[in-house]
């Protein structure tokens, strides 16, 4: 029972509190639990990414890393409770109103289709031998209280495992296992595959709300079709849909299905929120969290952000092309502002990429 409560605490309450630290300062996203939980998870990812690399270099133990990260997360949760103390009531009122105003049939259809997927990934096993690396590293960290000291066979690593240290998602898995007192393999294969799948669909719902101007009916229909596309997405061995439904506990699957698509949602909020600080922080945290899950995140997240920035910048310029001179100058300024702030958000990815390249010997 305690374990299940700890799971609820880690997988639901803590991310919401962490996310509310930032959404508290947002206009539209305030009291939006879906947005908060998404940002909360990314905050956790970013915290672990920030500390795991230096701790590994300094040869610190897993427990010391865990203690530092958990203390920071708890501290942020306490801050969130304090600053949001008057908001919780509004959150519950919002939930009540949302349930009242939600189209019942479409909600039920989406609930059923998501529930079936969650049930399958919870109940059944998918054999993927890459787990000997990704999941075993979590078990090794937890059971030996070390960070990347031991190889997959059990000997001490003779060389520094650069690729894995720069995207330490298994260490996050180990930390969740330690917190909830479940085995890392069970957490990865069972809890992550369900929880992250739900997060993926939460993100698509938020995207639907953005695409259809907060029309819940359309957003739910959109979500329903996304679900169908995923369910029939076993097109090849490499498709991101397949990664989402068969091996979501591996960081690269989280990158391709959660973090990259969520950049669209978070970037849109960033633009709509006039690139103000809380929105900017959200984007920065998301970019940072992309580094934790996979070394591919060092490249893919900046590429996605680049694509989004190009599209929005050209839209700004194009929209203002025929406007008055003053408006055009304003457009150029917002173009520069958007471009500059987006570039700053790529800083963690670029820094880690440079460090990675140096360690790999690609840059001398």
């Amino acid at each position, binding site marked *: 029972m305690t374990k299940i409560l700890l799971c609820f605490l880690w997988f639901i309450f803590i991310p919401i509190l962490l996310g509310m630290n930032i959404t508290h300062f947002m206009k539209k996203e305030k009291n939006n639990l879906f947005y908060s939980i998404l940002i909360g998870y990314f905050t956790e990812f970013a915290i672990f990414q920030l500390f795991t690399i230096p701790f590994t270099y300094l040869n610190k133990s897993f427990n010391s890393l865990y203690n530092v990260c958990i203390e920071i997360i708890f501290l942020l949760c306490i801050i969130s409770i304090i600053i949001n103390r008057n908001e919780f009531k509004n959150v519950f009122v919002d939930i009540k109103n949302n349930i009242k105003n939600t189209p019942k049939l479409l909600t039920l259809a989406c609930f059923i289709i998501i529930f079936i997927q969650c049930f399958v990934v919870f109940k059944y096993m998918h054999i993927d*031998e890459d787990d000997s690396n990704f999941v075993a590293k979590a078990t090794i960290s937890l059971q030996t209280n070390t960070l990347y000291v031991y190889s997959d066979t059990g000997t001490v690593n003779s060389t520094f495992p650069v690729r894995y240290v720069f995207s330490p998602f298994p260490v996050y898995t180990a930390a969740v296992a330690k917190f909830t007192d479940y085995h890392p393999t069970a957490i990865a294969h069972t809890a992550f595959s369900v929880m992250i799948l739900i997060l993926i669909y939460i993100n698509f719902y938020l995207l639907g709300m953005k695409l259809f101007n907060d029309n819940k009916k359309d957003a739910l229909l959109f979500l329903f079709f996304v679900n169908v596309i995923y369910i029939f997405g076993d097109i090849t061995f490499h498709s991101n849909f397949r990664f989402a439904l068969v091996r979501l506990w591996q960081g690269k699957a989280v990158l391709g299905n959660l973090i990259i698509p969520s950049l669209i949602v978070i970037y849109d909020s960033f633009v709509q929120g006039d690139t103000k600080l809380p929105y900017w922080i959200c984007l920065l945290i998301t970019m940072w969290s992309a580094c934790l899950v996979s070394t591919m995140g060092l490249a893919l997240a900046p590429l996605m952000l680049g694509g989004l920035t190009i599209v929005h910048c050209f839209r700004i310029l194009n929209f203002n092309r025929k406007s008055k001179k003053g408006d055009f100058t304003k457009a150029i300024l917002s173009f520069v502002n958007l471009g500059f702030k987006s570039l700053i958000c790529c800083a963690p990815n670029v820094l880690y990429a440079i460090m990675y390249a140096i360690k790999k010997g690609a840059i001398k």
Partner: protein
Amino acid sequence: MIDLVSKNMERIIKLFTDYYGNYTYFVLFLVAIAINYAIIKKDEKKAQNLVVFLPLVLMLIVINPFVFEFVKPFTDKGYVYWRFFWILPLAPTMAYLFTKMVNEKKGFFSKVILTIFIIVIIGFSGKFMFTENNYQKVNNYYKIPDDIYSCIASISAQEKDNKKAMIPISVVPWVRQYDATISIEYNRSPSGNYSRFVWDYEVGKVNEYMKKYLDDKCNFFVLNKSVQYDISFEDYNCERIYENDSYIVYMLKD
């Protein structure tokens, strides 16, 4: 320069084909972009940005020989460049079109019929995920194949210092997922490029390597039940500690 571009484009197209299979999902995606462009009203700038221009810009980024060349050193010489295709927003672009199409219909039943029709189209374009090939039933919450799980658990249960096991290839991925205190004699090779002793172990040739295993301090041996081994492990001071339908586990006596 032209050589480089054409060579890289060839690689990208090959990876693209590997990624999209028969291309039906990708064709649906392209069709969705085109129709989205046609149907989105000019004042719906956000939708136009996200489901028309963004996919086009991202396609220009990933299907790009120069980007490929730049990231080649970091993608196993381009071998894993297919992961770059993950940034193409297939699902939202297609789902946006389908939602718009259903919304265009008037009346509940025509909406339902169109939705079913779209599901059928998606179904025929893709492949159903929840098949026996992808998911198997299992009776432990670690989601490790049951017969392998019980073998590893039997080793785990032994009170012995410095446990090290020689195991068949089929068991390799699982041991240290469950118990990191058990070392293994060799690591999994994703390409199947194993040393000779590993392949010989698979067919029961152990005699030649038994000294190596003991010198390497192996104290557990997992045997495949369907294989005829060329030695008796009892002769090497080993005792049988566990057996199921697929495997036998021997432990070296102290």
